[in-house]
């Protein structure tokens, strides 16, 4: 049965809210007199929805919204607000409240509002459960040379690595580093054809040249293809740029004492350190990286 936790320091108002909701469906109720008590109830058992007053001793409604949002993100909270507290209600929505109903309009609006939020929450919970059932996923992106897209792709794939991927959090950060290094290489060295030597001698000139080439032919039409296949067993990432490619064997070994202070080659070194398998295609403009499940 759907449970609503009603939080209000006034027993009369709690009863009133319950009465209004009882008419609209098959609901059960739990009660708390303030935010702190509500959090204690939530520890014992989790309701489907929290309906809370704004002004309460101990912990007010706004603080409760923040705490529930942080600790129980799938439980929606609706605020009951007194006249003149619209500004706080807006603040509550910003903090993650699912809605608010002015106390003056409870009779008219509470039941409909609760029903609507419950429907949305049920759908969201189903989606979350379904995502937990995903056993593998594939993504393909074609991105331009805007560096902000690199972080966007890595963040997106990280989300799926944490849901479906083959490794723990520490290994996921390693994968993120490797993936980002490969994308930076694809954009700056592959598509924009800018050498690490320039970065070594003049970092400002390096970024200025990158900015200029993003607008110039033939660089500006070049893209990076990213293909990812993530399963519980392994994750494979293929990053391909549209540049002329390079011969990885010509890169200086950055761990050679003679090259320790050079900047080039470190990205590929980290990719090789953090991934289980790394290979390039014949023309050198495509890198395939594989991370396998923890043995």
């Amino acid at each position, binding site marked *: 049965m759907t449970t609503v936790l009603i939080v209000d320091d006034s027993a009369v108002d709690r009863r009133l809210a319950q009465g209004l909701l009882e008419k609209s469906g098959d609901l059960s109720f739990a009660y708390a007199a303030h935010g702190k008590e509500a959090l204690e109830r939530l520890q014992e058992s989790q309701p489907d929805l929290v309906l809370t007053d704004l002004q309460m001793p101990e912990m007010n409604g706004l603080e409760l919204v923040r705490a529930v949002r942080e600790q129980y993100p799938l439980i929606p909270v609706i605020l009951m607000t007194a006249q003149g507290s619209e500004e706080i209600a807006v603040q509550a929505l910003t903090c993650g409240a699912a809605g608010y109903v002015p106390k003056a309009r409870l009779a008219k609006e509470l039941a409909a509002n609760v029903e609507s939020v419950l429907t949305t929450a049920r759908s969201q919970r189903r989606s979350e459960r379904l995502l937990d059932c995903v056993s593998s996923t594939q993504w393909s992106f074609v991105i331009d040379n805007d560096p902000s897209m690199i972080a966007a792709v890595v963040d997106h794939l990280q989300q799926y690595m944490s849901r479906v991927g083959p490794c723990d959090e520490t290994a996921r950060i390693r994968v993120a*580093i490797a993936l980002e290094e490969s994308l930076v290489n694809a954009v700056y060295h592959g598509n924009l054809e800018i050498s690490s030597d320039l970065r070594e001698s003049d970092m400002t000139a390096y970024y200025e040249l990158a900015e200029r080439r993003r607008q110039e032919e033939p660089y500006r039409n070049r893209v990076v293809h990213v293909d990812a296949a993530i399963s519980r067993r392994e994750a494979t990432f293929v990053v391909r740029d549209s540049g002329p490619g390079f011969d990885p064997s010509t890169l200086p070994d950055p761990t050679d004492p003679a090259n*320790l202070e050079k900047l080039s080659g470190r990205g590929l070194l*980290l990719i090789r350190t953090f991934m289980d398998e790394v290979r390039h295609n014949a023309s050198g403009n495509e890198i395939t990286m594989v991370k396998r499940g923890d043995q």
Partner: protein
Amino acid sequence: MSNITRVDGVTVFEIDQEYDSLDEQTLNELGTKMLAAVEQADPPVLLLDLTRTTFIGSSFLGVSIRAWKRLRDRHGRMALCHVNDLCREVLKASKLDSIWDVYPTREEAVQQMSKELSS
């Protein structure tokens, strides 16, 4: 905003969490700040405090190498402290732990570096 302090002759550069990033342009900004700290370091002894850094990549190594080279030109030195396991792994993989000393805490680093300054 990265915090720069001077303790017993050692310039301590605490890297802010906003640079907990692999983004090249963000790290370019860090590099500019780090180089400014190097220019002002007198004596040229710099300690990078990674307390708030959870991961680093090649761009971070790049800006650190540039700072280190400037210090070396002035016969100075650079060390790191509060380096977590992942960052340590990156340093080890790139063998940079062989040229930069890594200390567990800021206090130990400052103590050792200032001792070497006075010897």
